[in-house]
């Protein structure tokens, strides 16, 4: 089952790493939208939607927290699962993001396998079939 993904990060290198992880992680990716900050992401989503959003926290123009607040306040986008990927491992940050209701928080550095696992958890029907049925 294909899913559309949005990756939000001001680092093109990190966007590439995340994109590759999704591609090789055995999860069928439909479209992959990319944005360099929260404002760009919201602009892209103005007339569109995706199945999951992976966002950095520290970004210029609009950071991840503000992006999530905007998404939660938009009835059309409020249910899209959001995974925050950030270098910030301080307790304050983790608590604030949990309070915002993000579906997952992944601290950098992370293994690509961990990200793939988190995506399966955030989007449970992305890999609902058993492994043998998946390839019949």
């Amino acid at each position, binding site marked *: 089952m294909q899913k559309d993904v949005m990756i939000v990060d001001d680092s093109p290198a990190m966007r590439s790493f995340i994109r590759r992880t999704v591609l090789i992680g055995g999860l069928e990716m439909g479209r992959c939208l990319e944005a360099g900050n929260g404002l760009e992401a919201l602009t892209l989503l103005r007339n569109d939607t995706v199945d999951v959003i992976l966002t950095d926290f520290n970004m210029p123009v609009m950071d991840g927290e503000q992006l999530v607040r905007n998404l939660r306040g938009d009835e059309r986008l409020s249910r899209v699962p959001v995974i925050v990927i950030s270098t*910030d491992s301080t307790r304050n940050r983790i608590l604030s993001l949990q309070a915002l209701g993000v579906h997952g928080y992944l601290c950098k*550095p992370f293994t690509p396998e961990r990200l793939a696992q988190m995506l399966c958890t955030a989007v449970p029907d992305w890999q609902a079939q058993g492994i043998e049925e998946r390839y019949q």
Partner: protein
Amino acid sequence: MSPEISVQNSAADACLAAVPEVLEMMFFESMAEAPEIGGSPRLELLDVSRVDFEGSARGYLVLAAPSALSKSLTEAFLALELRQSAPSDVEFVLGELANMVCGGALGRYQPDGSFRVSTPATRLERPSAELTTSNVSWIRFSFYDGPLFVGFQPEATQ
């Protein structure tokens, strides 16, 4: 320093823990020798990246690597074949490396702290003066494709 936000590890210890973790997990590199504290790398010969941070501590992290290591790390991170990386790739990857090492070090330096980290500034070979200072406490991490010099300079805010 705010009495509620204490330093849990020294800057050096935080850095010593953060660098190998980041390099092993996302750049698939392991160290060739034990790290060395001290020294003065010749920055004019190296690729340099710096991130600044503020919040419960203020300061910066700077890292420097020879071109061979920068390219090797870039090729690993972006899954490129040998000699396929462009200078812009190296710039972005080194910046992300500095960003991740800084985050890892800050999380160990002040686990209860609160920070904002700047967008990395990177210069490939012949770094400009504004990226470095003369009083950096360097740690040298030796990898198989070259050394990585890291200077983590936090100052607790009043």
